[in-house]
Structures are given as C-alpha cells and as structure tokens.
C-alpha cells in the first residue's frame, strides 16, 4: 500500500459526521495471570485489572477516565489500543475490532489511534533526534514517500505543538519537561490519527506547565477534530478537559456521565467520596465543606469483593444485594440526571433522595481476606465472573 492511498482512506473515513460512535468497547477484560512455581509455572490466580467494561466514545469528543491507582484505568487505555492484549471482549473502532487484530494487520491499523504517555522523558528514545522520532511513524506507515512534503509536514507538526523547527535537530534530553510532552504529542500526531489515548498526560509535569499542555491538547482537538480518551487520576484536570467522564473502581466502571453533570449530580457513593476528597485552593471552602472520608484501602484486584466491588468501603452499604449481586451500569430516574448518566449502584435513587443515610464503616486493610462487617455466609470462594453483558 502506498502512502497516498493510506492518507486518502483515512481522510475518507474521517468525513463521517462528528457525534457518531467512533469506539465501542464491550465486555472488555484484561486478566493478568499470577504465576507460581519453581520449574513449571503454574497459574494460581488472576489479577482482574479490567473486569468487564463497556463504553462508547463518540467522534470529536473527549472521554475522561478517572480513578485511583490500581483501578485499571491505564490498563483499560492500553487494552483499547491493543497494546495490552485483552483477555476477552471487543473494541470496535470505526467498524474494525481492534481487539481481534494481530501482527501486521494491527500494525498498519495503528496509524488511526495513537497514545500520549505520562512520562515524556521515558517515552522518548533518548538516542533519537526529534526529527527521527517524528519521522519514524510516518516511515512505518509509508507516509514519507515525498521528500519535500515530509519535510514540510515535520515543520508543520512542530509548529502545531508550539516548538521551533530548529528543535528537530535536537535530542529529547535537551528539552524541558513540558517541551518533551509537546514532542510526545507531535509524535502521536505524525501519523494522522483519529483517536488519541492520553495516559496521565500532565501528571508528571509541574503545576505551571500542566495548563500549557492541557490548552495545547484542546487547541489541537479544535483544529484537527481529534477524539481523545484521557486517563487521569486528577479529577479537576479530567473535569476540565472532558466532555464525558467514566469513573473506575477496581476494574469496572461505576459511573458514567456528561462532565458537568457528574460533578453536579454524582450518583455513585465512590464518585461522591472521590470528589469530596479533592482539596480545593480556597480556605473558606476547605473549612466548611463536608468530606466523605473513605475508610480502609482498595481491595486487591486479585481477590475482589463479591457483589458490588465498593461495598467493603461504602458508607451507604445496605445489608441486602450489595455484597451478593454485582450492579450493572444503568440509567436512573433522579432529578438532574440526564439520559446518558449511568451508574452501577443498586440504591442510587434512594441515596440521591436522602432515603438512605451514610454510616460509619469499619476500616479494613487490603491484605485481610476476611472482613469485619456482618455477613450471612462465610463462603471463602471467589466471586464468579459477572455475566457477560450483551
């Protein structure tokens, strides 16, 4: 396949109207085997890093994925790009199931979806000049056939991310952190992708530099009509940059909503706790606001709690259903919640109306397999996989 036809097909596909579904993730699972044994490896269990996620990303929007470390958000981001092969499920990108692609088919398809990494230093090969880094992807996809056009393209990329063309001859270590992240973004753009997965794109940067990169990402989106999946732990950043947000806890989505609405009407207890925990640079607000302090730690993803994954730390936990039945994402009838607002909580309506009050939760640590709360059966067995969502 020659370079020009490659570009043409990409362009042709891109004429599709914004707002239609670009990525459809269904039943996505990534389980890492836990090996044990001296001579022969035996699989003794699985870390359920991503455990059944369904989400859709529409063309031209920014989908934010937020959660704490260990919730599987980064693994999910990589699994969507098939950089981490999914154990189960599908990722349909513009009609093609990326999750089932392998080898050369996957490689050639990669020009349509790119990634921006957290650490701009470690994700740039220290031995390559910026020019070589930017050329590499174009060469891999045969987009560098015309020499003068390639040269113009390189300059265009540099100016798009706000770097001077003279920087092409330099090496990554000669740039500051923020500039390196710009190079990382230019590299992702070099192959003309539709989708960019940005994994913690600003968390390695200084506070004053973060805003530069956030603004750059937004400007590029406006200019090029890009679709973003932004994975981050910083709720304020995610809320600022995203159109829709998915909140992850222990391998699964617990809530998904339009960005503004999520903060106005948080429905899942975990979302509420997460938002109340973010410190705000306003002393008056800090002094008066009511925090929901979660007790205990994130349970181990190798041995997740039965039922609702959050029930071991949930201040609204009920005696029934919570520890036995895993809730699925559903639309609820709550004031202020729109159609696209989905939450995985059995009692979301009652919590929103104040019918169920929060209560104290005995803290328990991640290492303890048993827990202190009241429980009907002491079954030591792992919860079976949740039923696959159609």
């Amino acid at each position, binding site marked *: 396949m020659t370079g020009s036809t490659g570009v043409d097909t990409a362009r042709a596909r891109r004429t599709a109207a914004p707002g239609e579904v670009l990525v459809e993730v269904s039943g996505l699972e990534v389980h890492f085997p836990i090996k044990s044994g001296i001579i022969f490896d035996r699989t003794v269990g699985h870390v359920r890093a991503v455990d059944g996620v369904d989400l859709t990303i529409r063309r031209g929007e920014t989908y934010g994925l937020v959660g*704490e*470390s260990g919730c599987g958000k980064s693994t999910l981001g990589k699994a969507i790009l098939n950089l981490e092969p999914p154990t189960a499920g599908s990722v349909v990108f513009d009609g093609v199931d990326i999750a089932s692609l392998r080898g050369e088919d996957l490689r050639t398809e990669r020009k349509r979806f790119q990634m921006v990494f957290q650490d701009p230093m470690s994700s740039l090969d220290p031995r390559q000049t910026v020019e070589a880094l930017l050329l590499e992807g174009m060469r891999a996809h045969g987009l560098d056939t015309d020499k003068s056009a390639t040269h113009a393209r390189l300059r265009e990329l540099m100016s798009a991310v706000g770097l001077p063309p003279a920087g092409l001859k330099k090496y990554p270590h000669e740039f*500051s*952190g*923020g*500039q390196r992240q710009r190079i990382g973004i230019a590299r992702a753009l070099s192959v003309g992708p539709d989708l960019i997965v940005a994994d913690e794109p600003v968390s390695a940067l*200084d*506070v*004053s*530099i*973060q*805003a*530069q990169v*956030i*603004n750059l990402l*937004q400007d590029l989106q406006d200019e090029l009509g890009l679709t973003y999946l932004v994975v981050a*732990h910083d*709720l*304020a*950043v995610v*809320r*600022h*940059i995203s159109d829709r947000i998915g909140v992850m806890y222990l391998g699964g989505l617990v809530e998904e909503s339009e*960005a*503004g609405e999520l*903060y106005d009407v948080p429905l899942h207890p975990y979302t509420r*706790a*997460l*938002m*109340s*925990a*973010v*410190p*705000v*640079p*306003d*002393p*008056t*607000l*800090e*002094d*008066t*606001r*009511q*925090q929901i*302090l*979660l*007790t*205990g*730690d*994130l349970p181990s993803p190798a041995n997740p709690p039965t039922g609702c994954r959050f029930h071991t730390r949930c201040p609204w936990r009920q005696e029934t259903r919570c520890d036995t039945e895993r809730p699925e994402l559903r639309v609820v009838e709550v004031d202020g919640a729109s159609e696209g607002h989905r939450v995985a909580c059995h009692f979301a309506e009652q919590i929103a109306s104040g019918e169920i009050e929060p209560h104290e939760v*005995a*803290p*328990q*640590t*991640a*290492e303890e397999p048993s827990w202190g709360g009241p429980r009907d059966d002491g079954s030591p067995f792992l919860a079976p996989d949740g039923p696959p969502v159609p």
Partner: protein
Amino acid sequence: MSTQPIQPAVRHGEPLLAVRDLRVTFGRRGEEPFRAVDGVSFDVRPGQTVGLVGESGCGKSVTSLAIMGLLPTRGNTVEGTAVFDGEDLLSLSAQQMRDRRGADIAMIFQDPLSSLNPVIQIGRQVTEVMERHQGLSRKEAMPKAAELLERVGIPDPRARLANYPHQLSGGMRQRALIAMALACQPRLLIADEPTTALDVTIQAQILALLKDLVVETGTAMVMITHDLGVVAGLCDEVNVLYGGKIVERGTRHGLFARPRHPYTVGLLDSIPRLDAPRGEALSPIPGSVADNLPWDSACAFAPRCSNALDVCVEKTPAWEGDDVVGLRCFNPMGVSR
C-alpha cells in the same frame, strides 16, 4: 471531625523555629555551583502549621533537609541560621543533631515505602525511636507503639506491629511513618510532600489525620507541598517559593483571597478547579524554570512574568514585609496596571 476548622494563626509567643537567611549551595566537581536555597527566612510558632509551597526545584525540600541536617555534606554548603528553642541547628555537631532528630523534630517523607526499612517489622521500627530517645526497653515501648498505631488510625494495631512494610498498603505505611514521627512527642513536625504518592481518597484521610494531630498534640508543623489545595486546607501561614527564594507570604485566608505576586496568581490561574464553573480556558504561566534569571541582578521570575517591568530584569526585588505577610515583587498584581 474532619471538617473541624483550624484556629486562626497563633501569632503571639516566641517562635519555636526561626530560620534566617538560609542558603544552600550545591557544588559538584567540574560544574557551576548551584544555589538551591537563596536566603530563606521564616518562623514557626508553637501549634502553628506553616506551608512551603512551590514547584520542583524551588528549594522547598532542600530547605527542610538543611534544617534537619540531612543534606550530604560533601560539596554542599549551608549558610544562615535555624534557631530551634534557642539553639542553632545548623551549628550543631552531627551527634547533637542525631539526638534532636526524631525526639524534638521529626520528619515525614513523601515515599512511605522507601522511608521504612523493608526487612524490619513495623513495631520494631516504631519502638526503635523510643528506645533511642527515651531510654525505654523494647518491652515497655511495644504497648506504646500499639497505642500510636491506633492513634494514627491503623486498624488492629497489635497485629500490625508484627507486619513488614510491604504487607501494608501505601496509606497504612504513611500512617506508620506518622506514628514513628510522633513516637517521642516532637515539638516540630516537618512533612515533606506527605501525600503526593497517595491517591486522593487516601490523601484526604492522611490530611484529616494530620489536622487532628496538630490540634490534639499542639505540635508545630512545616508542610512542604506543591499542591495549593493541600495548603488551603491545612496551613495557618503560607510561603510561596520560587527559584530558592520566598516570593510571597501570607495568612491562609489572606493569601488565597488576595494573591499579589504574579507567580502566586499564575499558579492559582493555571490549575483547573473542581469548584469553578467548567469551560473557562486555563491561563498557564509561560515558559519553564529553565528560563529563570539569576536572582543576583534580577527577579528570577521576570522572564515568565506577565507583569514584568524594566526594573525587574535590572535589580533584585527586596523583601517587603514581616514574618506574617510579605512580598518580593516590583510590580505586584492589582496595584499598578
């Protein structure tokens, strides 16, 4: 309990710690000496929490390490004074400083895993401090250690005493470290980015714990962080550092309500906030620390400053203010626009 408001800054009384004109210079063979801390002065009074805020390379951590006598001596010079309880910490011998550390002054570090010895049980690490400074036997210290762990919110403290650090989660490790720091009822606690390595929900737990402890024990605290949100909830007094100097100081409410240094304003404007309406573009601070000018003949921040005047690149701005409120700027925000 977590929402208990902090009392206004206690301004009366002698300072517990008075740092004056602290300068730290790093020198390495064949390289230009680098001044990491450039004349920092501040006071910490009993029961007060003082914040040192700034980005990486601003000198906030080096300041705390210098006060604690924890900087490697080779190639580094530390000048100035840090008077703690009538005694200049910077002129103490290594032995005298060791007696002070852990007893009168304790420190909490950013990374709880690397600050704990991986091959020694938690209980042993907590009691070690008490054995060393209070002359207790291990037997006497153990129940106290269990009490401490309970105090910092570690469930089932007696069982945890026998655990090794890797058996605890990140949040629990940081609690164990705080327990160690509190073991000898220090009068000053230095917390160096104590929650940066933790998730937000765990951060909220640890901050609430620190708040409670300060109120309960009356210990003074120096809080070192890059997060203005953390400062807003915790510190009585805030010092903003840039390029090794304090550029602005204020009380908690004063500084956030009316920031005056363009750098402070820039920091506040460049972070997205959960409490602000969505959709407003951020105004980043242009450039990076690499653009700094030397303080000797200019304001280091001038090249990145939108408010800069000609004088900013010709003279060093002087510190105007006292030990409660102050500013180092020729053209502060909201004055002569």
